[in-house]
């Protein structure tokens, strides 16, 4: 984890934020000057008030300094928030663009959830970092310097003590910080486990209830929550203790300055206004350092999100060698030549060789996880073969612009993702300018017309997140409508009827038959009903391909 208070990659990667950050630094410098001016004026005001007189100039100066400080507070907050908004927007766009650049295989699985959270709400944690921590960080540099300079002008011996004691704060902070960090890391796993337990139990409540264990579990939940409390308190005790030590260090340092000042004042060796100035300014020197330290913890979440976002977007997408070759039109022969696909832990395809002639309908069967979906993924360009190659009309797919090649393909996935948009937008995915008659034809072909008729706003009905509001069968028909609209020479179907009941299955099957008619088709089949229309059947088990079609039947 990155524990630096400022990530220098930020300046390089989000140039738009540079100006705001520079302004923030300048405002920090001005704030330090105004703090000094305010203390100087107040000291003068009080030093004359002791005689019962009002120093009008000092009062005016004090009020002017206060007004300036108020203006700076506003400017600092506003600029920090602007920087936060700029950085968040830039990183969001970069993150989402990275998803597009890397392709769907890279983003699949756990990473999808992580990225969605990061780009969505995760980056909002940066607000606390930019508006809370970063301005304090600037002040922790500028204010001690300004205070030292001003006190040095008035009384150099006090300035010397301040200069010698100020480093104690970061030194103690670092020492205690390491201690606290080590303790926190020891606790971390335990804290995460105990904290996650409540969520896990709540999420699985229906199952607990189904086994009559829900009430027994209340005691377990209480015990785990109590364990969480005890573990949290142990880490907090260390954190609070280190804050106490830092506060005492600062207090003692102020006392080291104040005692000699008092003695010299008593002896008449110092004027009251100088003594008051030193008293008012000295604590200011230690304050921002401590404030920055205590806010660092609150901004950790934002820094972690920032680190994650910068790291994810820095990973280069696999480059395609040379300029892309023109995509084949998809009406030629498709050949898998010794294709092997290895993932991190498993091998999905082993030395697969397959020739698909134009217009052939090939069914792919095999146990789940055997590599059937990977076969389609290779053809779609989502998966790059570890060895071997795929050619269409003799052109190696590795050298072809994937978007151009995918235009020749219609794909019906196992579980189509539906978007939080209108039903029409969901069907015309990738072809927003589809004329209404073509859309209507696709809807009819996919047997979606009765579904559309039952919706309140027909095709304009806006679906919920992830297509909420449609049943699995209806979603599958939306995916088929997309494929019909695509009108591509090659159709790839990945178990289009999995998870459907028999009634929906029959409807989807009919539509599927219409779709594959006259096209080259590769159908992954979980249900036997799909096999009836296939010209050839192949089986994939453990990444290996076997031809099941009896030799005589093969055309």
């Amino acid at each position: 984890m990155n524990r630096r208070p400022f990530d220098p990659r930020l300046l390089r990667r989000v140039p738009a934020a540079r100006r705001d950050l520079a302004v923030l630094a300048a405002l920090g410098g001005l704030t330090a000057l105004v703090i000094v001016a305010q203390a100087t004026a107040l000291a003068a005001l009080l030093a004359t008030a002791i005689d019962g007189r009002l120093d009008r100039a000092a009062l005016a100066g004090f009020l002017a300094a206060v007004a300036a400080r108020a203006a700076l507070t506003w400017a600092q907050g506003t600029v920090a928030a602007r920087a936060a908004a700029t950085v968040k927007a830039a990183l969001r766009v970069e993150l989402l663009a990275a998803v597009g650049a890397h392709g769907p295989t890279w983003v699949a699985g756990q990473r999808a959830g992580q990225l969605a959270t990061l780009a969505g709400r995760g980056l909002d944690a940066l607000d606390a970092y930019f508006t809370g921590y970063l301005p304090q960080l600037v002040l922790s540099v500028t204010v001690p310097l300004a205070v030292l300079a001003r006190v040095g002008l008035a009384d150099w011996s006090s300035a010397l003590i301040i200069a010698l004691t100020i480093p104690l704060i970061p030194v103690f902070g670092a020492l205690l910080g390491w201690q606290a960090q080590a303790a926190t890391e020891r606790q971390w796993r335990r804290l995460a486990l105990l904290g996650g337990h409540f969520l896990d139990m709540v999420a699985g409540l229906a199952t607990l209830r189904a086994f009559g264990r829900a009430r027994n579990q209340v005691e377990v939940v209480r015990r785990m929550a109590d364990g969480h409390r005890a573990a949290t308190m142990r880490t907090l005790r260390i954190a609070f203790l280190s804050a106490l030590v830092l506060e005492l260090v600062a207090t003692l340092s102020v006392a080291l300055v104040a005692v000699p000042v008092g003695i010299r004042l008593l002896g008449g060796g110092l004027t009251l206004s100088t003594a008051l100035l030193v008293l008012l300014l000295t604590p200011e020197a230690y304050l921002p350092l401590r404030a920055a330290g205590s806010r660092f913890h609150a901004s950790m979440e934002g820094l972690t999100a920032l680190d994650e976002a910068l790291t994810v977007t820095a990973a280069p997408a696999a480059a395609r060698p040379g300029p892309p070759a023109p995509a084949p039109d998809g009406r030629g022969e498709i050949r898998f030549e010794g294709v092997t696909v290895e993932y991190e832990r498993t091998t999905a395809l082993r030395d697969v060789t397959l020739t698909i002639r134009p217009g052939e309908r090939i069914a792919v069967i095999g146990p789940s996880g055997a590599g059937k979906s990977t076969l389609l993924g290779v053809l779609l360009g989502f998966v790059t073969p570890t060895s071997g190659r795929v050619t269409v009309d003799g052109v190696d797919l590795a050298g072809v612009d994937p978007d151009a090649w995918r235009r020749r393909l219609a794909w019906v996935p196992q579980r189509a993702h539906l978007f939080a948009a209108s039903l029409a937008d969901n069907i015309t995915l990738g072809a927003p300018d589809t004329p209404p008659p073509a859309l209507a034809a696709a809807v009819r072909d996919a047997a979606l017309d009765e579904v559309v008729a039952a919706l309140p706003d027909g095709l304009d009905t806006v679906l919920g997140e992830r297509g909420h509001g449609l049943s699995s069968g209806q979603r599958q028909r939306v995916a088929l409508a997309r494929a019909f609209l695509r009108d591509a020479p090659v159709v790839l179907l990945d178990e289009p009827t999995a998870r459907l009941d028999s009634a929906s299955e029959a409807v989807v099957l009919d539509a599927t038959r219409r779709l594959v008619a006259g096209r080259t088709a590769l159908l992954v089949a979980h249900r036997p009903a799909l096999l009836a229309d296939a010209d050839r059947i192949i089986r994939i088990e453990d990444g290996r391909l076997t031809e099941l079609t009896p030799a005589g039947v093969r055309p």
Partner: protein
Amino acid sequence: MTGRASAERAVLRLARPYLGRLVGAGLLATATELAGLALMATATWLLMSAAGQPPLDRLTVAIVAVRALAIGRGVFRYTERLAGHDAVLRMITDVRARVFATLAADRGPARRSGDTLSRLVSDVEAVQDLLLRVLVPGAAAALVGVLAVAGTALVSVPAAGVLAAGLLLAGVVLPLLATRLTRRTADQVAPLRGALAGDAVDLTHGAADLAAFGATGTALQAARGRTDRLARLERRLAAAGFAVDAAGVLLAGVTAGAVVLVALRAGVGGVLVGVLAVGALSAVEIALALVGAARQHTLLRAGLDRVAALLTAPAAEVTVPGGAAVGGGPHHVRLDGVTVRYRAGAAPALAGVDLDLPAGRRVAVVGPSGAGKSTLTAVVTGTVVPDAGRVTLDGAELSGYPAEELPRAIGGLLAEAYVFHATVRENLLLGRPDATDEELAAAARAAGLLDWVRDQPHGWDTVVGEEGGQLSGGQRQRLALARAVLAAPGVLVLDEPTEGLDPAAADAVLASVLDATPAGHSVLLISHRLSGLAGFDEIVVLDAGRVVQRGRHADLAASAGWYRDQWLLQEAAERGYLALRP
């Protein structure tokens, strides 16, 4: 308004056992702030008095006081934080347990969605923040303000009046303003943030669909537009929000200046003018903590309301335990004319369904999706109470049995079985906590999970990820099935037990699970597949909530109707499939 006030009341009610600790923490927080204020005031008095060069012994008390206050402030702060966090965390433990107990006792059809539940978990944290960041510091700031005005009044009543005005502005007006601004910001930003989160989900979870149809660019463009709009809005709103902070800074300085002016006019001694001015500056700065508390409070509101609504809802009726406790072993379940209607006026989910399930009988319920199969499961397991008709267990009303004991008699694999983030063993033992290793192995074998368990380096102690994430869909289903077999209730309910398995595996698993069911135990199978049903005593075909066909497989397959149509379709397809196996 009343809803919000009652949310706070509900939280305070929960805090009652820890009220002593919380009040203690509040007093310590007050002491901390007061020590800081007194430190500045005393130090100023000391310096200004010293300027008159009095004999040292006149200053001794003040010198001691400054030292004590300086160290006291730190120690007070440390103890306050410890005491406050300890009290609040203890209370949160209670809240978690109570929230869980409330959810656990909550039966009936109005189940909460997964999202609502996980949101509830973070809502509980809102209770913690309300106490630690709003109530305790708010109360301390208010108390310090009152004490500061009282102290000033001892010296000069006009100066006290000025300070009181400054404190009212800082502690009441500015927090109200901050509340309004924060609410306005949240109202404007929330919909855009929600839409953007939706974009993020679409671009990541829908990445394959977008790429396949060449629509990634368009989707990115839309997301970029929304991102820019959000950034513009955030920049605009920040300017208003920080104006409140700026006003606070101005207010502190102006109050101090005014106190000097008024005190000098009133003829207050010079040293005390300094003390009052420095004291006023500190007091207003302390009161400004209320601005932060008000902002925090505004953001916590929604979460607090949800927790309060859950905990103050009328307690779910606790069923009085029926005559006999429910034990394991054979049971007899019977449904007579059961009708379920989820909403008044809607078509019934079940209409006049009869079902007899004596000990040892095996019944399968089939039919298209939406026919009422899940509702039937819910009625049999007692989670849905029928609007008409009777459900009896061993002759007595099902609803008369304690809900907690019913699963020992009726249960098994219900829809959406959850796999816990725990070991395989712990997940299975949920079915029967006192099961031996042999029983575990037998259940796992029946569900076809045993080989996988043996292959794992940690065997039974393999931790399955969050929501069973490290298991494939098939293994997950087998784990849930093994748990149901291990539980071995007298009436074993299997709701789509082979979902996610391919046909050959599905048939094998169903057969071995049925073999592993003890003699005398009855089985209620809910399925959309029609394989492996030949051995069942009765097959019930549901359509639109009504029983349209019932009988044994051989009879149903021979007579015209939904069952025969589906059976022939599947048979033809499956034979072809099996014949094609090498």
